Every structure is written in structure tokens, then in C-alpha cells.
């Protein structure tokens, strides 16, 4: 029973990590940038979502506004920060991205307050779902379900629509894709938009679970995000998804069984090293 509980929480978080960090994978695939500032979009989505939910009383409205805010911010980060420094060595965009993250976190402090926001009428409070001896937090089901649905939509788009195929072609060979009429700039905006939207949804879900958004809530996914894209095989979507699940489950069991000695990010680091010893190019690249 205990192990089943750990597994459920691990899978729920794995799905959530996948959703929250997909933007990193998409952006890395296209631009080879480690988009650390992505973590701030998770926080932005959570803040805006909770704020609008509290003000309007509608979670759906909150979620939609959160997605819009994150999408606009994600595209602005590309346009104002990354676009002009793409030809620089990789550490330049990385440092710029870190700067954006710090700047936005301080912005959240000023705008939303140091103590953060809480959800006024949280529909998932004490909501649990019982089957026989099992009792699962409804929010876990929502987290896993939301992540699986949104990732399935993204995967369907990437594999079965010609725009999605063109997107993947751009990841593979951007210059040549352009020669076949693929607008590489639009593809980049689409990647930032899709990744940011997913991060916003993930942010709102975590805010509902904790009933709290803080200016630094995004730190949950910043370091882990890097581990996930490396584990997943740098820019590979399926790989990143598997890596997220592995990490979620490893964390859950790791904290459950050795929690007095290790913390969450340490487990991510250990999983990273162990996996790279087995698959030196990451899980996603192991096949080719």
C-alpha cells in the first residue's frame, strides 16, 4: 500500500514535470538555448491563474488568462532577449536567461507580495477519491490527467499535422526547412507559446495542490528541468517525457525511503548521473 502511494505520487509528479519542462525541451531543440527563465513562466501562470480565479470565482477563466499571460511573456522573452543573441556562444543566452529569471522573480515579489498568494475557494481542498483501501488526492488525478492530455495533444500535433511535421523538420535542419517554405521564426514563436502554455497549466495545478504560489515557486522546475532535458536526450520530446516520469518516481521513492538524508534536487542529480552512465546520450537518443 505504502509503495503504491509512493508510486502514485511519483507518477503524478512525473507527469507534472513533463508538462512543466516541455518548453525547455522545445526551446532547446530549436535554438540550443538552456531556457532557465522558463521556470518564471510556471510561476507567472500560477500567480495570474490564482489571482484571476480569486477575483472572478472561475477556475477556467483563471486558467485561460494564466495561459495567455505566460504565452505573451514567453514570446516576449524570445523576441526581446534571445533573438538578438542567438549567434553568441551558448553561455550568453544562458546567462541572459538566468538574468530574466531573477528579474521576473523579483518582479513577482513586488507585484504579488513576498508571502505570495493563496487560493480562496480551492475546489481540491481535502478532495480525495477512494477506491477500496486506496485514497488518492483528486489533485493528483487532475495533475496526471492534465499533463497526459496536453502532452497527447502536443504529440498528436507534432506527429500528424503538417505544421507539426514542419516543426520537427526545423528542429532537425532549420536552414533547409526554411528552403521548403517553413517559416522558422513562426515555428520558434509556436514553440515558446506551446511550452509557456504548458508551464502555466502546470503552475496553476501546483498552486492548487499547495494552495500557495510564492515568487520563487518556479525553482521546483528550474534545476530539475535541466536534468530532464539532459536525461531526455537534449531536445527529444519522448525522451523528456520518459525522463520526467523516471525522475518523479525516483524522487518519490527516494524521499520516501531515504528522505532524512537526501533532498529532492539531490535525487535529481543522482538520477542524472546514473542514467548518463547507462545511456551516455540520454534516454531519447539511446536508440539511434
Amino acid at each position, binding site marked *: 500500500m*505504502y509503495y503504491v502511494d*509512493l508510486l502514485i505520487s511519483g507518477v503524478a509528479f512525473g507527469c507534472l514535470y513533463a508538462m512543466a519542462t516541455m518548453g525547455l525541451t522545445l526551446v532547446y531543440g530549436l535554438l540550443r538555448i538552456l531556457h532557465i527563465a522558463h521556470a518564471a513562466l510556471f510561476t507567472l501562470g500560477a500567480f495570474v491563474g490564482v489571482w484571476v480565479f480569486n477575483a472572478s470565482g472561475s477556475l477556467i477563466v483563471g486558467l485561460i488568462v494564466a495561459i495567455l499571460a505566460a504565452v505573451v511573456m514567453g514570446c516576449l522573452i524570445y523576441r526581446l532577449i534571445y533573438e538578438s543573441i542567438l549567434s553568441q556562444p551558448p553561455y550568453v543566452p544562458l546567462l541572459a536567461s538566468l538574468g530574466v529569471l*531573477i528579474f521576473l522573480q523579483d518582479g513577482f515579489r513586488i507585484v504579488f507580495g*513576498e508571502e505570495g498568494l*493563496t487560493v480562496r475557494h480551492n475546489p481540491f*481542498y481535502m478532495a480525495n477519491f477512494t477506491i477500496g483501501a486506496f485514497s488518492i488526492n483528486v489533485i493528483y488525478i487532475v495533475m496526471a490527467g492534465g499533463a497526459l492530455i496536453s502532452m497527447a495533444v502536443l504529440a498528436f500535433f507534432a506527429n500528424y499535422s503538417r505544421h507539426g511535421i514542419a516543426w520537427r523538420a526545423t528542429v532537425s535542419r532549420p536552414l533547409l526547412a526554411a528552403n521548403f517554405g517553413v517559416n522558422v521564426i513562426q515555428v520558434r514563436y509556436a514553440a515558446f507559446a506551446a511550452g509557456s502554455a504548458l508551464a502555466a497549466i502546470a503552475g496553476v495545478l501546483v498552486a492548487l495542490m*499547495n494552495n500557495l504560489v510564492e515568487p520563487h515557486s518556479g525553482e*521546483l522546475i528550474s534545476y530539475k528541468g535541466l536534468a530532464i532535458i539532459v536525461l531526455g536526450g537534449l531536445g527529444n520530446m519522448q525522451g523528456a517525457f520518459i525522463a520526467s516520469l523516471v525522475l518523479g518516481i525516483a524522487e518519490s521513492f527516494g524521499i*520516501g525511503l531515504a528522505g*532524512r538524508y537526501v533532498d529532492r534536487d539531490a535525487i535529481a542529480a543522482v538520477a542524472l548521473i546514473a542514467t548518463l552512465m547507462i545511456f551516455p546520450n540520454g534516454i531519447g537518443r539511446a536508440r539511434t
Partner: protein
Amino acid sequence: MMRRIVFLTAMLSACAVTSAPADIIIGMHAPLTGFAAVDGKSARIATEIAIGKINAAGGLLGQKVQLQVFDDQGQGAQAVTIANKIVSDNAAILVIADSYSEPTRAAASIFQAAKMPYISAVASHPDITKVGNYVFRGSQLGEVQGGSTAVHIAKALKKSKVSIVTVDNDYGSSLLNGFKAAMGAQGVTLVGEYSFTMAERQFGSVVAGLRRDNADVIYIGGYWFQGGPLVSQIRAAGITTPIISSGLAAQQFIKIAGPAAEGVMIVDATGDDNANPEYPAFRAALRAQEAEANVFFSEIAHTAVDIAANAIRRAGSTDREKIRDALASTKDLRTMYGTLASYTSGREIIQRMPLSIVKDGKFAASGEMEIWLPAP
């Protein structure tokens, strides 16, 4: 970046006030930015309110009191820098630490070496006062809280199987140590033991463990920003075991945990039923400055000023050694946090320990706890 700027401003304003030599200067450091900034703000505003009251009533020894505020960011290295600055300025006659155990421990020996009276208002690590005879405590030791909780669980709640969940820092480990030291004699046993890092907000694995443990009581030791999510996640998982806690006496805890907070017992807090006649006015002043997020922190910050002012008056002098001696002989002093009976020879407070319970979204007084003291 912001932190730097705030710190610089604090430094500059601190330098500015030193130019008024006629005033009595009290130094203070607190985490004004960083992970504990909400607590730092609660402490700073409460301290300012307390000093404002003193000045409005004519000051101390006929002089106005000036407060120098420094931002330690909740970090030891910052606290060391600040302590060195205060000591080399040589203007403050007493310093208050409204901060966590790490920064307070780091700064204490510097003040001791300079023979500058130092009150650790909040930090509860046992080693802080062991640094020397100039270092005093303002609130209960973590070990005393933890040990008294074990006694309370056995004698008042009449339960024995306990799961304990504590924050992985000095405060959490002193709670745990006190609890473990006391539990044997009380027939209390631990069926589960968990810790979490300062940044942790996701408690899926801990909750899974708590469900397995099936304890009579869950004891949580940490801060509101962890306790809020933890308590809601425990209740959301359908676990209805009674919860007793240390460190969660912040309004923000109730705001986060909402209905899940109902019935949670809080060790060493009078909460909203504080019997001090000045308490309602104090709360109103905090509310006016939107500083009610962590009222417990505010109460003990105010208390440190109460203790300091009382000692300076009795010393009748700004001489630091006389103030130290006056601190050590504090007797039956009514503070915002209770009545300080006296100091032990180790400069720990002797004070009764109230218990409160969350009821209808408020902290309600729920009697007193028997005090457990560690073997000397």
C-alpha cells in the same frame, strides 16, 4: 539584485542614524529579503512599533531610541558581515536578532567577543546562548518545545504512537532532539520520522508514509510556508489524525491550509487570544502596516524590545556591562509573548508555555502545557 539594493539602503540608513550621537542605539538584524522575508518584515515592523511606543513615552534614560536595521537574508555569512559592522561602528548598546538559527549562531560569538549584549529573539538553537554571558534568549528553546510536546501528547492527549515531521535545519533538529529526549519517560514511541528541506512544498512521499504509519498524533515542526502545504496535503489525502505543531503560529499558515488547518494544535503560542492589555492596539498597528502575515514572529520581536528596554531602565546607564547584568536579573516581566519569570544561569527564559488551537480560522488559546526541561 533587489537584495543587494535593499541591503545597501539598510547600510546607508544605518550609517545616517549614527550621526545623532545623543540617541540610544539598538541594532537589529532580520531576514528582510530572501526565503524568510515575510518573517523579517513581521519582525521589523513589530520592533519599530515597540520602539515607537517607548519614544512616544519619553524614550529611555531621557534619550530617544534609534533602531539600526540590517538585512541578514536568513544567511550566516551575511550575519557575520553585519555583526562585524555593528561592532566596529561601536554605536549600538544592545543588538537584537530577529532571525533564524543559522545567522544568529554565526553572529553571536562576534557580539560576545565585543561584549555587546545580544538577544536572540526567535532563533531556538541551544548553542546560541552557550557562546557566552552576553548572549540571551527571547523565546523558548526548540528542545523545550519538542520535549514539552512529548509530555503533552502523553499526559494531556493520552496518546502514544507519534509520527514526527520536521524541517531539516537547526530549529527542526532541536525540536526532534527535545522530543526524543523526553518521549521515553512518557511512554511515547515514534512510528515514523520524516524531514524536509527549507524549499520543499510537495509532500507526496511524506503523506504516503504518514498513511502507512497510522499514528495517534502527527507532530509537525517547521514554518508556515511548509506547514500550510503539508497540512493541506495530509488532509487532502484523507488522513484525519490529530496534528500538533511547533512553528506554525503564523496567520499565513491558516490562510494556506484553510479548512485543513482547523483543529491543528500550536505549541507555545497564545495566538489571537493574547491576554496582554496592549495586545489589541499592537495587532491594530500591525494591521495598519499590512504586517499580520506572521504575528507570532511579531510578538517575540516586540518581546525582545520589552526585555531590552526593561534592562536598560534598570541598569540606569548605557554601559553595556551594566545592561548585561540587568538582563540577567530580569524578573516577572510582562511581554507581548507572556510573562518572563526570570533567566536561567544559561540565559534561557523561564516562562510558561501556552497552547493554542486553530478554530474558525483563528488561533484560539487552549490552556497551558507542562514544561519539560532538558537535563543540564
